[in-house]
C-alpha cells in the first residue's frame, strides 16, 4: 500500500495536485518499502536531514543506484565532472565558494541587485510581445524565455548568440521531460547533440574570456584571482551547465505556478496590482505552497541514521519531499491555504543547509518582477484551462502550458 503511494506520486495522473498524496505520505513519516528509497515527508525531519553531515550528495556513496526509481531519469549522460550540486565538502565547498565569488556577498554583493533594471526590461519586452490577448501561453511567451535570457546575461553570452543558446536550452529541457510515447533512443541522441554543441560553444566562450575578460560570471570563473585560484575549463563548463539547467526549469515553474496560483486567488492578484511590493511575501509563500523542486531525490546516508524511531541504514537512498514538508500542519497553520500574509514562511522551497539553492536571490528577483509586472499589465486576466496541462516531471513539477486570456495589455 505504501509503495503504491510512491508510484502514485510518480504517476502523471496526479501531477496537477499531488498534495493529497503527500498528506497520505506524512502518515508514515519515514516510508520504506522493499528496495525503494527512504522517503521522508515531515518538515522538521527534512530540515534536520538537510543539515546532517552523515548525509551525502555524492552519488558515488549510493549502495545500489538502481533501487531508486528516479535515479535513471535524474542523472543525465555527461562527460563533465560532477557539479557542486552532486559533491560533498570539501570539493563542494571549494567550487561553490569560487562560483559565489563573482555572484553574491561578500565579494559581489551587487551582482543580483544591479540586474534589477535589466530584468525588468526583459520581462517588459516579453509582455510587449504578446500579440493575442485572447489566448496567451504564459509558459511559452513569458515564464520560459525569461530565465534563459537572464542566465545568458549572467554568464555573459553575447546578445547575438542568445537565440542559439535558447535552442539548445529548449532541447535539453525537453529531454529532461520526455513525452511517454517518444522514441527514447532518438530523443537521447538529439539531447546528446545539443549538450555537445552547447558544451563546445561554452568552451570556446571560456577561452575567449580567458584572453579578454569582461565583468560577467564566465570571465570571472575562468580567471578568478581569489584564494582558491582559477577553475579548470572542465570545472567552469560543469558549473555553467549547472547554473543553466538548475536555474532554468525551476524558475520557469516558479513563475508559472505563481501566475496559476494568483489566478486562482484573484483577491491576492488584485492586491499585488495595487502594491508591487507584495510580490516579496507572495513569492515566499509560493515557494512554500507550490515549490518548483518537489523533492530532493539524490541524498545518501554515510551512517545509520535514526529518524522517528526508524533506522535508515548506511548507504540508503533518501528522498526528502520538500513539497510535503511545506504543507506539514505540525509546522504551518492551515498549510493548504495560500496566504502571503502569514507571518512565518520559513519554507523548504530552496532546500536548506550547504546545498540550499545557489541562485535563490536571482530566482526571487525574477519571480517578483515577472509576477508584479504581469499583475500590473494584464487587464482582467483569467485561466482558460484549470488545471492546465503539466510536464511529465514529478520532481521539477510545473505546467507545460498555461493558457490564459485577458482584455488587453496595459502599457
Amino acid at each position: 500500500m505504501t509503495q503504491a503511494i510512491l508510484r502514485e506520486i510518480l504517476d502523471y495522473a496526479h501531477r496537477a495536485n499531488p498534495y493529497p498524496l503527500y498528506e497520505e505520505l506524512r502518515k508514515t513519516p519515514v516510508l520504506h518499502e522493499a528496495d525503494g528509497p527512504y522517503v521522508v515527508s515531515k518538515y522538521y525531519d527534512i530540515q534536520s536531514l538537510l543539515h546532517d553531515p552523515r548525509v551525502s550528495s555524492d552519488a558515488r556513496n549510493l549502495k545500489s543506484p538502481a533501487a531508486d526509481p528516479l535515479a535513471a531519469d535524474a542523472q543525465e549522460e555527461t562527460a563533465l565532472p560532477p557539479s557542486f550540486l552532486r559533491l560533498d565538502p570539501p570539493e563542494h565547498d571549494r567550487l561553490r565558494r569560487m562560483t559565489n565569488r563573482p555572484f553574491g556577498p561578500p565579494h559581489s554583493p551587487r551582482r543580483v541587485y544591479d540586474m534589477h533594471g535589466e530584468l525588468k526590461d526583459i520581462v517588459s519586452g516579453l509582455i510587449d510581445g504578446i500579440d493575442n490577448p485572447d489566448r496567451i501561453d504564459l509558459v511559452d511567451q513569458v515564464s520560459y524565455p525569461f530565465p534563459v535570457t537572464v542566465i545568458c546575461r549572467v554568464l555573459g553570452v553575447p546578445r547575438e548568440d542568445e537565440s542559439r543558446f535558447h535552442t539548445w536550452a529548449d532541447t535539453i529541457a525537453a529531454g529532461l521531460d520526455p513525452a511517454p510515447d517518444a522514441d527514447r533512443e532518438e530523443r537521447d541522441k538529439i539531447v546528446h547533440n545539443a549538450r555537445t554543441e552547447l558544451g563546445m560553444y561554452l568552451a570556446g566562450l571560456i577561452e575567449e574570456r580567458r584572453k579578454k575578460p569582461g565583468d560577467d560570471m564566465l570571465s570571472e570563473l575562468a580567471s578568478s584571482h581569489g584564494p582558491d585560484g582559477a577553475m579548470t575549463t572542465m570545472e567552469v563548463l560543469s558549473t555553467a551547465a549547472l547554473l543553466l539547467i538548475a536555474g532554468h526549469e525551476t524558475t520557469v515553474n516558479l513563475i508559472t505556478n505563481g501566475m496559476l496560483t494568483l489566478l486562482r486567488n484573484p483577491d491576492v492578484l488584485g492586491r499585488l496590482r495595487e502594491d508591487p511590493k507584495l510580490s516579496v511575501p507572495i513569492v515566499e509563500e509560493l515557494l512554500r505552497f507550490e515549490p518548483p523542486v518537489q523533492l530532493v531525490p539524490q541524498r545518501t546516508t554515510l551512517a545509520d541514521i535514526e529518524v522517528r524511531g526508524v533506522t535508515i541504514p548506511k548507504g540508503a537512498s533518501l528522498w526528502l519531499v520538500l513539497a510535503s514538508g511545506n504543507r506539514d500542519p505540525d509546522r504551518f497553520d492551515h498549510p493548504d491555504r495560500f496566504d502571503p500574509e502569514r507571518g512565518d514562511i520559513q519554507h523548504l522551497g530552496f532546500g536548506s543547509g550547504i546545498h540550499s539553492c545557489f541562485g535563490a536571490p536571482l530566482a526571487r528577483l525574477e519571480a517578483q518582477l515577472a509576477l508584479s509586472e504581469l499583475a500590473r499589465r494584464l487587464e482582467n486576466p483569467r485561466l482558460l484551462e484549470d488545471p492546465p496541462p503539466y510536464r511529465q516531471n514529478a520532481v521539477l513539477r510545473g505546467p507545460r502550458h498555461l493558457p490564459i486570456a485577458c482584455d488587453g495589455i496595459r502599457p
Partner: protein
Amino acid sequence: MSGDGSLDRLKRDGRIVVVGASLAGLRGAETLREEGFTGSLTMIGDEPYEPYDRPPLSKQILLGRATADHTLLPRRRAIDAEWRLGVPATGLDMAARRVRLGDGDEVEYDRLLIATGVRARPWPKEDEAELDGVFVLRTRDDAYALERSLAQSPRRVLVIGAGFTGSEIASACRERGIAVTVAERAAAPLVGALGGVIGAVAAELHHENGVDLRCGVMVTGLEGDSTGRVRTAHFSDGNSVEADVVVVALGATRNTEWLAGSGLGAGPRGIACDAGCRAFDIRGIVTDDIYVAGDVARSPHPLFGYQFLSLEHWGNAVSQAETAAHNMMSESADRRPHIWVPAFWSSQFGVNIKSVGVPTMGTEIVIAQGALNERRFTGVYGYQGRVIGAVTFDQSKWLQFYQQQIETTAPFPPPFPTVDRRLEGQHPRDADFPDPSVPTHGPTVTLSGYAPDDRRLTFTPARH
C-alpha cells in the same frame, strides 16, 4: 494567582515596568503586548536612545559603513509605552513595588522586568582611563567616538584583551589599514571562550592579517603626554608600545549596583532567577513579581547540570525576554522554562565564527569536519563522554546538527562518519582551556553552581 481573576486584572489594567531599554527590554515589552497585556507599560533606559542593536557596533560601525539610524532595532509591533530614556534606575523598593529613578522620580509597578544588561569593564586605573584616546566599546556613543578617532588615521591602535570584542576591533582596524597591537594575558586570543586549540587558529588569523599580537602579557600602565593624550602603554614583559588609541576590551560588568540593598539576589555575577525567569531574593526565595532577562540574568539550565548560566548572547536576550514576558502573563501551569541552547557568533578577519552549547564545559575537542589549517572547520567539544558544545569557522550551516547532538546528549566523540572528516578528525584532544585560577577577561559564558546570594567573583569552567 490561580483562577481568582488576578491575572485577568493584571492583563487588563496592571502596571508593568521594564528597566533596561535594549534588546531584551524591547522584545519583552513586545511579547507582553502580544500576550494581550493592555495595562500601562513603562520603559526605563539609561541611554538616551531608542533600543538599538549592538553587534554592528564592533563591525560595520567601526568600519564607517553604517550610521546611527541603521542600528535601531526593528520593531515587531507597537508597544504603546511610556518611555523614560536617558534616566537610569537607581533603586528598588521590593516591598512598596517601586523603582527609583536617577532624576528623583519613582515609578510603581505590579510586575517588574529587569533587563539592565552589562557595561564595558573600564580600565582599572582611573587617571589612565581618563586619558584622551582611551576607549571602551559597549554603547552607540562608545562606537561613534572610537570610529571618529579611527577615521583620523592613528599611527597605532592598542587593543587590550583578545576576546571576541577585542578581536573584532583589531579586525576592523586592519581592514581600515591601521596598525594595531593586541595585548592578551592568556596564551592566545579567544581561549577563555573556545580553548587553546581554537585559540591557536585565532592567533594565526591575527598574525596573517598583520596584527602585532602579544600574548601572555598584561598591560601594566598607560602613559599620557603633556596634553593628557595617551601615548605609550607598558607591558608586564618590560616592553612598551606607542599608540594614539587604546581600546580596553576586558569584558563586561553586570549592571546590578542599583539593586544593592534592595534584597534582590543581585551581585557582580548578575541576578539569579529560576528557569521561568523569576528573580530570587537574597534568601534564595523566588519572587512572584520580578522577572529578569538578558545579559544580567543568571538562570539554571537543565541541559548543563542545572548550573546557573549567565550568557552575553544576542539570541539569549531575545529568547529569555520572550519567556519572561510570557510567564508574566500566564497562570503557573502555562509557564515555560527558559531552555535556550547557548549560541553566539562573531565576525573577524573575514571569518564567520559561530558556536552552540557551552564549549567552556568541554574538556576535549575533535575537529569533526574540515581542517584547522584551512580555517574552515567544525570543532565539537566533549564533556564526560557527551557532546557539550561546538564551534564553526566558516561552516555555520552544520551547526544545527551539532545543536541537536547537544540537546540529545549524544555520545562524544561522535561515533559515526560524516562528510569532510579528515585525519585530524579521528581523535579528540585536550580542548586546552586555561587554568581557571588565572583570570581571563573573555569568556562569554560563565558557569557557577553557587547559591544566588553568593557574590564572590570566581571563574569556574568545568575541569576534570
